[in-house]
């Protein structure tokens, strides 16, 4: 991270900051602002969801039964566990416990993979029985003429969320590698903290998606 650096203690911080703490606080602040932009990005989809659910409440009720509540619930628990392990990993990084921090990050990655595997089974089942977005919809059981819109929204929201899971995993792999190289310590663990914040957001969005899509009635 550091560059054109001044030296204090063990960590080099960039020349335009007063101290390593100043750099850490600024990075964290920047990440929070970024998370706000992520909320606004998903916000568009949540609005679309709200509008179409308001327009076709009975269709949402009928269509949502096609989603697998058990798989959705398991995935919710899986992501909450992953958030816990990530939070603990940040705590360990802060306390110089590099080995424990790395193990906890691996656990987080394990939960993330589990989430994606379950999601894969959900998606492939839906694709198999024709519960597809918009024009590709061809399921004979749910006959409401507007049902394709529900599945458009379902695939768009969970798809964008899935993409964020993948990005989050990429970030965690990156900080995991750096942790194993011994680049972080209690004096400098900003990237771990930042990746952790991102991962919690990914978890948080799912916590809203699950009841809105799976638990309508």
């Amino acid at each position, binding site marked *: 991270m550091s560059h054109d650096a001044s030296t204090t203690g063990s960590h080099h911080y960039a020349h*335009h900051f007063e101290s390593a703490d100043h750099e850490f606080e600024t990075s964290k602040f920047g990440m929070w602002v970024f998370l706000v932009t992520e909320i606004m990005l998903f*916000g*568009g989809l949540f609005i679309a969801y709200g509008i179409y659910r308001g327009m076709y409440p009975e269709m949402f009720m009928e269509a949502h039964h096609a989603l697998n509540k058990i798989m959705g619930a398991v995935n919710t628990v899986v992501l909450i566990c992953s958030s816990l392990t990530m939070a603990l990993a940040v705590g360990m990084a802060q306390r110089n416990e590099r080995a424990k921090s790395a193990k906890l990050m691996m656990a987080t990655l394990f939960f993330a993979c589990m989430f994606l595997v379950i999601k894969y089974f959900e998606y492939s089942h839906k694709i198999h029985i024709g519960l597809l977005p918009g024009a590709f919809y061809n399921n004979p059981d749910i006959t409401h003429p507007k049902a394709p819109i529900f599945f458009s929204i379902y695939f768009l929201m969970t798809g964008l969320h899935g993409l964020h899971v993948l990005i989050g995993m990429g970030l965690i792999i990156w900080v995991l590698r750096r942790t194993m190289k011994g680049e972080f310590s209690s004096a400098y663990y900003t990237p771990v903290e930042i990746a952790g914040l991102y991962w919690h957001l990914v978890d948080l969005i799912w916590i809203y998606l699950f009841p809105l899509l799976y638990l309508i009635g």
Partner: protein
Amino acid sequence: MAHDASASHGHDVDYLNDGKTVWSWLSTIDHKRIGIMYLVTVLIFFGVAGLLAIGIRLEHWGPTRTIMGPDTYNKVFTLHGAIMVFMFIIPAIPSALGNFLLPLMLGAKDVAFPRLNLFSYYVFLFGATLAVVAILAGQGVDTGWTFYTPYSIKSQTGVILTVLGAFIMGMSSILTGLNFIATIHKLRAPGMTFHRMPLFVWATYATSIIQVLATPVIGITLLLLVAERVLKVGIFDPALGGDPVLFQHFFWFYSHPAVYIMILPGMGIISEIMPVFSRKPIFGYRAIAYSSLAIAAISFLVWGHHMFVSGQSDFSNIIFSFLTVLVAVPTAIKVFNWLSTMYKGSIKLDVPMLYALAFLFLFTIGGLTGIFLAALSIDVHLHDTYFIVAHFHYVMMGGTVMALFGGLHYWWPKFFGRMYPEKLGRFAWALVFFGFNLLFLPQFYIGGKGMPRRYYNYDPVYTLGHQVSTIGSLMVGFGLMLTLGYLFWAAKKGQKATQNPWGAKTLEWTDAASPPITHNFHGQPTVDNWPYEYKSERV
């Protein structure tokens, strides 16, 4: 990277001479160099889109075909609008002037995240290139810059790549806004409280908030449009049960606040120029600062005024009409405070001040005609006519572009350490100012008479208005080319500038050399007052 930590580096070399190779520019993380790179890039786009505008004007010399066919015409005005909005006017002042000036005005060595800053430049360049290539390589884009559904779902032209280009440029805009917010919160010099910040910084802050909050919404909207074309999801497609008006809501939820991304930084520039060239403290500092935030806040609540004739409910129309008129309040607060700043000042009519006065005059016309359009019954008559075209050009060009050129002349000595030629500058200003009014005043008239916007042919009764307008466009075009020509000549060959040729009080003039050294300041500047203290010079 370019920014190595050699011993003498950054302490006595000015930023222009700190590395001479092209690579030292392309890989720089110095906010000043990134600002200059943005400046050159957006001015190139401005030139291209300006030439397209002159093409449109020449086509309208006569009521039927003059220089291009109808399909070409559709693509030319789409390209003009899309380039001007996404590649010039949104990034122009925040990314170019903001990048250069923000850290200097705050007494910081750089923005909070210098590498992110460079990254966002390349993201912008990539998005812009993608959009331009998509438009030029394929069959162009004929949807207008608004990409309204359902036509944009059906159009056979290169909508997807253009929209992705706009999405990517939006990411750049988000990252720049994020960087500026963090910089303003975390990197102010010791003693610089929020209420001691220059007003340009306040304006940039309000702009950044809009960039960060609104741009993600256009991001998801454009992605949905791509999904609509590729996956046929039907959210916006009436044929699949979707609602095309929802697209308009999403689009304007961003694109109306984006109008304030365009104008707020311009207002910031005017707030800097006015006190310096009136030799008086700015009048109503807090009122100007807070009105920037007020405009940013209200900007999120007025998007429906673009949709008065889209079939949205009368109740929504009335609410949006009321809220839209409300924008006039903080805007007028600014205008009256600038006027009061000039009152009994010793006004010096150098080129920056001339542009600031042009801004006041033209922006006031643009703003007041905006109130006409906010009134429902009048808007139904004027919707999609040349009246609208004239209105927003008075705001965008008469407002933002005048402010930009005022700012360029004002800070040119700081950017390059050299003065622009004053007499030539005044001559070019006169061409631009009078040409501008010749160009757009007649459009209010023919628009009020019913001339629809975007039409290729028109009723011959409008011929005179169109011809006057075309003559004006040539004057503006010539004046601006002259201006850009002498500015870039002056950057190399102009008379050497002193550190503070205008006697201004903000840190970039009082504490930084012209041009500044790589690290901006020798040591850390401290602040114990606001930057508009002209007491001793008051008349």
